[in-house]
């Protein structure tokens, strides 16, 4: 049998995702028939999830550099400068990833390990993790597959609270959307953020010193088992059958918390002693990836002994020990001379072997000058490859075909504001998210200033003794994605920026997760390209921190392809973006609740007739088509600048961005957020019964300020105008209509609880 046939057979027998050509490329690297371990290692490294082989050429257009960027995309997380406090420079560390496929198959475990993986990415840069967000897309909870959509939604949220709350990382919200396009393939995107001293960033490669001093690799954490074997490959396949549950990892937040404490102690000790080290979490590809990457990216080889790996199941084949994705493990490259002391911290001070039977820390490898990746199991060499092939990577230039959707407007647009607003407020997309947030611990660590729902973005005060506040928001509108993939990308950035700006914070960095169908389909690949172009375009326009000199940098992210059902239907193009902002003095941060009767409401951003994909069309007219709002980069920048200026002057008393439901719904939400013993409402200017003015989702903001402060603004921009005033009546009205908000409050607050958890349909 020739090599080609052997490779064909082994790909089939082992269920590998790599193509025959890829396996031949591997055979060329090693100069023989690859071993099972080599096949599984490269199957993971060359999976779409790890290699970005389809997306890399397109992603190159994203702006990733700006003057504040410390570490751009490439390592486990991105880093930007944040603030200086008492002479110490603090950097913000951010990471963003998807855990879509596992969450569809096993929602609780899938969502839990999603958080587990993303926080490890931030921890392993040496940071303390101070927040996480979940950006969730579920199927239509009241549609044909509603029962499954609701069960998945419940499971995902259970996974998030069971894992995230125990971990002690505050949940800073995120967003949740429902769309029948996710009936067969939910999206669970997760963001984690943290802070690290600028002089104490850890890197995921063995340091330069290992060329002259003996370095070893310590594996610390949970004992290795067979869970998650083939996880990255699984993430890169479609969900045609659901028998692959073995590929979903099992999370353990309890061990993670203890392990994080132990890591902190170890890293602090290494920094105090000025000992250079490499540090990386174990994710896709398990031990195989962490050992090969730590070595290869440091220009060294490594000799790994699988018999030294602490396992919880005996008799596992070497490729399973090496490639399983058992959670809660880290790899640490340190000088041999300090190894005993480090093992002591993990195994004695923090008692990992007692707390997790079979777990702990052990030396499993030694770095070598010989640039070869070598793995030994029971005295036999089970892998031997030159390290440079590990860093080389793989690229495909996918075909694409422009496939725009015809824009169809509804025949007529009747308007009855009280009834329209009720329909929007009491729809799954318009209703309060508080039933979801009530499961999350948003206040652990004691740094939270605005919780989810209190302002357009969560605001925390993450660094003790420092007044700098962090604002964060994540967004992405599937209805726009379905109609106009370019604008979906641009508005995902635009809306997240507006949410951050509304609180008074200046956007300093962004991350993206690009969720699409099968990239081998030219129309899907076109959607992907459009989304990336949209994001890049918006980022180039919204470099607010550098006053337009640099773009808003994308510093981390992830691509998730093959989000589709067995019938081949792709999800709506779903670029999801998180934006991070800084407010120098958090006491100036602004929430969205209306404050003082007699104040006026300023509309920022003239309304345009562009209601395509709007909540009004969907909820009131049952129409999902139409022309999506344009992204007007310069105007968007100028509006944000004005809102930030008002915040700095201290004259904005409440601010809310205009998005789903338009101006009218934004005003209602500002009223619904008021204190129950100080209710407020809004009277809009006369004659407002026009769907464009009330419901158009043209980007913009509403700002509450006193009439005197408004008068005091000498140069009023032409995109700003008075649209209403604040009253002490809990209602929204114009001269010809009125909606009492007490009529809807209870239903609005409990709608998701009733639909998703109580199944009251």
């Amino acid at each position, binding site marked *: 049998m020739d090599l080609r046939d052997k490779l064909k057979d082994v790909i089939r027998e082992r269920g590998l995702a790599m193509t025959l050509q890829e396996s031949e490329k591997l055979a060329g690297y090693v100069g023989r028939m690859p071993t099972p371990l080599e096949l599984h290692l490269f199957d993971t490294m060359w999976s779409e999830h790890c290699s970005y082989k389809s997306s890399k050429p397109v992603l190159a257009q994203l702006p990733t550099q700006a003057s504040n960027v410390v570490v751009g995309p490439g390592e486990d997380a991105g880093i930007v400068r944040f603030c200086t406090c008492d002479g110490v420079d603090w950097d913000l560390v951010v990471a963003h990833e998807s855990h879509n496929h596992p969450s569809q198959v096993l929602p609780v475990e899938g969502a839990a390990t999603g958080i587990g993986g993303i926080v490890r990415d931030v921890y392993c840069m040496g940071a303390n993790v101070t927040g996480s967000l979940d950006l969730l897309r579920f199927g239509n909870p009241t549609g044909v597959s509603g029962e499954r959509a609701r069960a998945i939604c419940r499971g995902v949220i259970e996974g998030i609270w*069971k894992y995230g709350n125990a971990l*002690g990382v505050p949940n800073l919200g995120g967003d949740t959307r429902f769309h029948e396009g996710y009936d067969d393939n939910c999206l669970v995107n997760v963001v984690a953020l943290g802070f690290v001293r600028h002089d104490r960033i850890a890197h995921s490669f063995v340091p330069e010193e290992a060329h002259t001093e003996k370095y070893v690799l310590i594996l610390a954490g949970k004992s290795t088992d067979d869970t998650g074997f083939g996880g990255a490959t699984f993430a890169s396949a479609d969900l045609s059958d659901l028998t692959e549950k073995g590929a979903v990892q099992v999370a353990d937040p309890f061990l993670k*918390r203890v392990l994080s404490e132990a890591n902190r102690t170890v890293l602090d000790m290494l920094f105090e002693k000025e000992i250079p080290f490499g540090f990386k979490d174990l994710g896709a590809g398990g031990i195989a990836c962490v050992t090969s990457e730590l070595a290869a990216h440091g220009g060294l080889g490594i000799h790994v002994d699988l018999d030294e790996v602490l396992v919880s199941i005996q008799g596992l084949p070497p490729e399973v020990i090496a490639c399983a994705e058992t959670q809660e493990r880290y790899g640490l490259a340190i000088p041999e001379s300090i190894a005993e002391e480090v093992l002591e911290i993990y195994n004695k001070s923090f008692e990992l072997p007692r707390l997790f039977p079979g777990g702990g820390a052990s030396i499993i490898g030694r770095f070598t000058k010989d640039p070869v990746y070598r793995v030994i199991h029971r005295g036999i060499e089970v892998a031997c490859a030159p390290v440079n092939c590990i860093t080389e990577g793989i690229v495909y230039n996918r075909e694409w075909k422009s496939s725009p959707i015809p824009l169809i407007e509804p025949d007529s647009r009747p308007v009855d504001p009280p009834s329209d607003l009720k329909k929007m407020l009491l729809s799954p997309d318009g209703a309060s998210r508080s039933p979801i947030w009530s*499961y999350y611990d948003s206040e652990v660590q004691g740094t939270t200033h605005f919780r989810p729902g209190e302002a357009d973005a969560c605001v925390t005060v993450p660094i003790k003794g420092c007044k700098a506040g962090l604002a964060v928001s994540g967004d992405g509108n599937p209805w726009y994605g379905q109609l106009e993939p370019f604008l979906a990308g641009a508005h995902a950035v635009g809306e997240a920026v507006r949410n951050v700006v509304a609180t008074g914070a200046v956007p300093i960095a962004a991350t993206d997760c690009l969720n699409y169908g099968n990239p081998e389909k030219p129309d899907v690949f076109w959607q992907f390209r459009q989304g990336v172009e949209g994001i890049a375009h918006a980022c180039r326009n919204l470099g607010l921190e550098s006053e337009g000199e640099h773009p808003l940098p994308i510093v981390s992210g992830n691509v998730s392809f093959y989000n589709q059902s067995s019938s081949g239907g792709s999800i709506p193009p779903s670029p999801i973006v998180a934006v991070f902002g800084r407010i120098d003095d958090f006491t100036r941060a602004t929430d969205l609740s209306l404050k003082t009767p007699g104040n006026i409401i300023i509309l920022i951003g003239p309304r345009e007739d562009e209601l395509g994909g709007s909540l009004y069309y969907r909820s009131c007219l049952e129409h999902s088509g139409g022309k999506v709002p344009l992204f007007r980069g310069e105007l968007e920048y100028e509006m944000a600048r004005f809102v930030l200026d008002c915040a700095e002057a201290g004259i904005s008393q409440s601010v809310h961005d205009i998005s789903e439901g338009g101006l009218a719904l934004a005003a209602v939400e500002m009223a619904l957020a008021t*204190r129950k013993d100080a209710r407020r409402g809004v009277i809009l200017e006369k004659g407002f019964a026009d769907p464009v003015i009330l419901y158009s989702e043209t980007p913009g903001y509403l700002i509450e300020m006193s009439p005197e402060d408004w008068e005091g603004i000498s140069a009023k921009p032409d995109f700003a105008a008075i649209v209403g005033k604040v009253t002490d009546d809990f209602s929204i009205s114009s001269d010809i209509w009125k909606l009492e908000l007490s009529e809807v409050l209870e239903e609005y607050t409990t709608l998701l609880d009733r639909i998703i958890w109580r199944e009251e349909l």
Partner: protein
Amino acid sequence: MKNRPLVAVLQFPGSNCEYETASVVRESGMDSLIFRWNQWKELSDSAPDAFILPGGFAFQDRVRAGTVAAKEEIMDLVFNQAQSGKPVLGICNGAQILVESGLVPGWENGRIESALAANHIHGRSGYLSRWVFLRAKKRALRVSPWLGMIGNSAIPVPIAHAEGRFVFAEEDLHRVSKCAALVYCDENGVETADYPVNPNGSFMNLAGIMNKEGNVLALMPHPERAFWMWQIPPWVPGVWGDRRTSLNHDPALAVEKGPGELFFRSLAGYFGLLSREEV
């Protein structure tokens, strides 16, 4: 020589509120150190003046929240110190540990007399994060070192737990009121057993219970998360809401103390650290 009283914050495997808890103790004019579960000797040698068991998920809530941690050797030390009258506070998971150790209510030695059962809310199960109001019981105000400065009005604090419902054995129900320290109420101080005023179905609306002597307090809500005014949500009603609203965009928001601070100031007062005016 010790200048300031030392408050030990215990870290069990799975605790996750130890840092912010130690921090607010220091902000209240006392020293605070975190001791790991196996630092029995260090804890003993430093002879703390008070102990706090912080929130979290000690030992993964294995068996039942607090059960495993209550059996750790380090708890023998806490137990003895509590018996000798040192102030002990358990917050959330810490409260669960105190109950499982038999320190509260502590009617009879060596007996576990209460449990923190799963929240009981119609149509909802699992974890609940929410701001609630608390009011201290009269006797507790007098005898507890943690409550001296609380006063009679309702104070807002957050809860975050899945198992926070105090329950007792049938034969003990007649004496439960004696251990009542704090109850859930509305912003006007009015008690009702209905959700969400009583957020978990707790017996007699109990949010915190104490031992006979009053030095040990098991408290489900998190005062360390309401220590500063800026931690209070903008929508909180009542007197504390008024104070929070009046501080909007005021630099004083960064330094003004919130309702949760009263617990720690009470302890400072107990140690004689407050001036006459402050008391």
